[in-house]
Each structure stands twice: as C-alpha cells, then as structure tokens.
C-alpha cells in the first residue's frame, strides 16, 4: 500500500526527514510516533502528496508520487482520508455539509451523498447533529466530524495526524475505538501521535521517528 525508499525532505536548511525507508501493507494499522519535531506530520503529508520529497521515492498503491500529475493526485486523494489535528472544518457549513463536501467533489448524485453522509455521521455517533455548525460542538465531536468526512468516501487509506492531540483521555479512547472499527472494515490506517498512553496497551505495529529518522519499530 505505502512504500518509501530513501526519502529525504528538507525545508531550506532544516532537514525534516532523513533516509526514511518504510513499507505498510494493505489492511495494516500502524502508529507513527516520536517527540515533537520528529517528522511525523511531514511523513504523513508526503504520503498524502501535500509535499514532494527532496529525494527518494514514495509509492502509494503502486503510484509514484514523484511523477504524479495534478489531476491524478486529486483523484488519489478521493481514495485517501486525512484527519487533521486542527480538524480543518468549515465553520460556515453545517456538520452535514462539511462531511458531504468529500463526496460532492467527486460529482456523486445528491441522493447518494445524502445517504452516505448520514451513514458516516451515524457511524461516528453524530446522528441528529447534521444541521449543527462545527463551532457549536465540543472538540471531540468536531474531531468525529472530521473522521466522518475522511471515511465517508470509503477510503483505501486513512491518515490521521495527532487526531487526539486536543482531546481529553476519555474522548481519546472513543476516537481510537472509531479508528479500530474503520480498520476492521478493511481500510489501511496510519496514525501519527506523540501520546504514549495510546501506544501502551496496543499490539499494533508502531514506527518510532526521531530527528527525521526511523529509529525503531515495534
């Protein structure tokens, strides 16, 4: 599913990633962890195609992101869900509209969009909150809207960057339960987190990053 070969990424003089080699198989659940500034966000952004590597290669489902065309990347993103730490919800749109956006860009029929959006909101426990605006929701609920938006398109890959960074421990557990259920439906999940408590009780594969390098794996 995801293959990285000798990937380097620098921002001017700052090296964010150094010789990263990685393979994530289809259907895997992987944690990427490390201290702040270790390169977790950069790694996810590279996998999402939001950044290009300074050198090295990245393959997603066999597609080389170094050579990908703009349109191809847009189409690939329709199959990849991304959950951001800051949710990236539109405050002027309702919960329903925020989630529906992910399907509307693909030109689906309105009836299909309505059906799928309701299903996704129900799956994250937000049924009945369709017409509410994001700022009227708690942090945990906003994150669930963001997850619903990421999974509504039935992605083959779900990337989450510090998805519980702004949440209390109880909500963190709820979100993690959601990710596991998404994973069980067959989606490959990669979660970047620096929250050690998330990793303590898990048997999931965990990749340790430090100063832009993979320093270990569990």
């Amino acid at each position, binding site marked *: 599913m995801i293959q990285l070969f000798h990937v380097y990424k620098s921002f001017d003089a700052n090296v964010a990633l150094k010789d990263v080699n990685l393979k994530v198989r289809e259907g895997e659940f992987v944690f990427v962890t490390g201290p702040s500034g270790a390169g977790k966000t950069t790694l996810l952004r590279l996998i999402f195609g939001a950044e290009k590597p300074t050198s090295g290669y990245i393959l997603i489902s066999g597609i080389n992101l170094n050579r990908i065309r703009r349109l191809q990347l847009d189409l690939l*993103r329709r199959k990849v869900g991304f959950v951001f730490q800051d949710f990236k919800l539109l405050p002027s749109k309702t919960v329903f509209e925020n989630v529906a956006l992910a399907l509307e860009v693909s*030109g689906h029929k309105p009836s299909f969009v309505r059906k799928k959006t309701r299903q996704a909101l129900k799956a994250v426990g937000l049924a009945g909150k369709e017409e509410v605006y994001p700022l009227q929701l708690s942090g945990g609920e906003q994150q669930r809207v963001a997850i619903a938006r990421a999974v509504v398109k039935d992605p083959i890959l779900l990337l989450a960057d510090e998805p519980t960074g702004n949440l209390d421990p109880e909500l963190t557990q709820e979100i993690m339960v959601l990710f596991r259920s998404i994973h069980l439906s067959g989606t490959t999940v990669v979660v970047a987190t620096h929250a050690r408590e998330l990793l303590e009780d898990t048997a999931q594969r965990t990749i340790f990053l430090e100063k832009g390098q993979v320093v270990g794996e569990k």
Partner: protein
Amino acid sequence: MKIRLLVYFFRQAIQSLVRNGMVHAVGLGTMVVSLLIFGSFLLLFVNLSDWVEGWGENLTMSVYLEDGLDEKMKQAIMRHIQGLEGASVKEYISKERALEHLRAALGERSDLLESLSRNPLPASIEVIIRRHNPRRTDPAAIVKGIAALPGVSDVQYSEEWVNRFRNILEVVRLTGFIIGGLLGAGVIFIVTNTIKLGLYARQDEIEILKLVGATDWFVKIPFLMEGILQGLLSGFLANAILFVGYLILAARKTFFLGVAPIHFTFIPFDYALVILAVSAILGLIGSFIALGRFFNL
C-alpha cells in the same frame, strides 16, 4: 459536464456573490458606471450618425443670384434646376424676403439693419434634390453645373456640412473605441480584485476542497461563473440605466447646433446584447486572471 455539477457550481457562485455582498456591490457599481460611460458614447454615436445620415438623405441647396437679374434669366435658372433628376425648387427668396428673414432672426437687435444704405443680401432659390440613390448622385457635379449658369453668384449645399459631420462622427467613434478599451481594462481590473477578495475569503474552503480531492476546475468554475454573473448583472444594469436615460432625452425636443431636431433612438437591440456579452466576457477574463494568480495550491 453533468447538469447537477453545473447546478452545484451555479449555487456556489450565487452563495459567494451573496456572502461577499458588499465587495460585489462596490465592484458592480464601478462596473456599471464604466459600462454606462461606454454605452452613453454608443448612444451618442448611434443618434448622431442617424441624424447626419437622415440629414444627408435630401440634398438641400441655396442658389444665390446676382443682383439686378431680370425675370427671364431667373426663370431660365429655375427651369434648369427643375430639369435635374429629383430636383425641385422649394422656394424663391427675394432680396426683400431675405432681409425680412434676417430681421426676424436678429430679433431685438434688428435695428442694426437700419443703418444699411442698401440691402446687401442676394436673392436665392432654395432647392431640394431627393436622392433615391445617394451614391449615384454627385452633388459636386450638380453644384458646378448650377454655379456655371449666367446670373448665379454662388451655390451652397448641405452635403458639405454632412461631410464635415461625418468626419466628426469618425472622431467620436475613435474616441469611443479608445475610451471603451480603457474602460474594458478597468472593468477587468475591478473583477480581478473582486474575485481575488472572494478567493482570499474562501481560502480555507479551497484548501479543504483540495484536500478531499477536488480538481482545480471543480474549485475554479464557481469563481469563473461568479465573474460572468457579475459581468452580466452589471451589463444588464448599465443597459437598463441607459434606457431610462434615453427615455428622458427622447421626451425632450433636442436641436443639435440649432440646425435640425434630433429624434432620439435607443441603441439597437444587438448593440445592447453586445454590451451584455462584452461585460460577461470581461467578467470571465477578470476571474481568469484572479484565479491564475491565486491558484498554486
């Protein structure tokens, strides 16, 4: 393109117009004023051109006679004139009548004429030549023929004036094109900035759209539609205001240079459509430029 996508884009464009109402209102107002200036030029040109052409349809001529001409010679001149194709003698103005006309024209200042020892005005024959085919009529040749007749001192004809006005019209047309071009550039500038403000206002939304897999065109089309709508709306308003202006002018009897009354007509329907189309195209160009500068997500 799928109809539901078009409906989606159109809805987005309308939402954006409403959401940035104030910015659009200012832009719209400026565009309407620009288009109105151009439209006014067009209206002026169309009416002046109609007026000049209408005036030139019939060639009018004043044939001035030498003093002391006997009746026989006068009749001979009249016969010659009436023998010309389409020509008719409108009236004979004797020296006395010419003086009366002048006295009437001078009004309160007619006492100036009392100091004259003799009547200096010549008698004249007013001639109208109806031109069924203006191109086949050579006014200069006719004038030359009449002027050569014995007893004729001078011939003046309207064609000279018509030609002068035609030259003025050319200047009006050229000025209109230059002003139109400059205003067109201004309109593009206004639309570019209005759309750009809309783009900045929706920067977060655009970013999220791109993150969930929207193609560039999916994001761009509503903005292009917004530009077209803004152009169409301003074109429509400019036409409407121009029409009201025309109604006000048409209700008054206007003389141009005190010569002949102008019967105002509105710009032809296809010209109004051209204004509408041009404003829509300018709107489209403006949003294209704005998107081109903005889009590098």
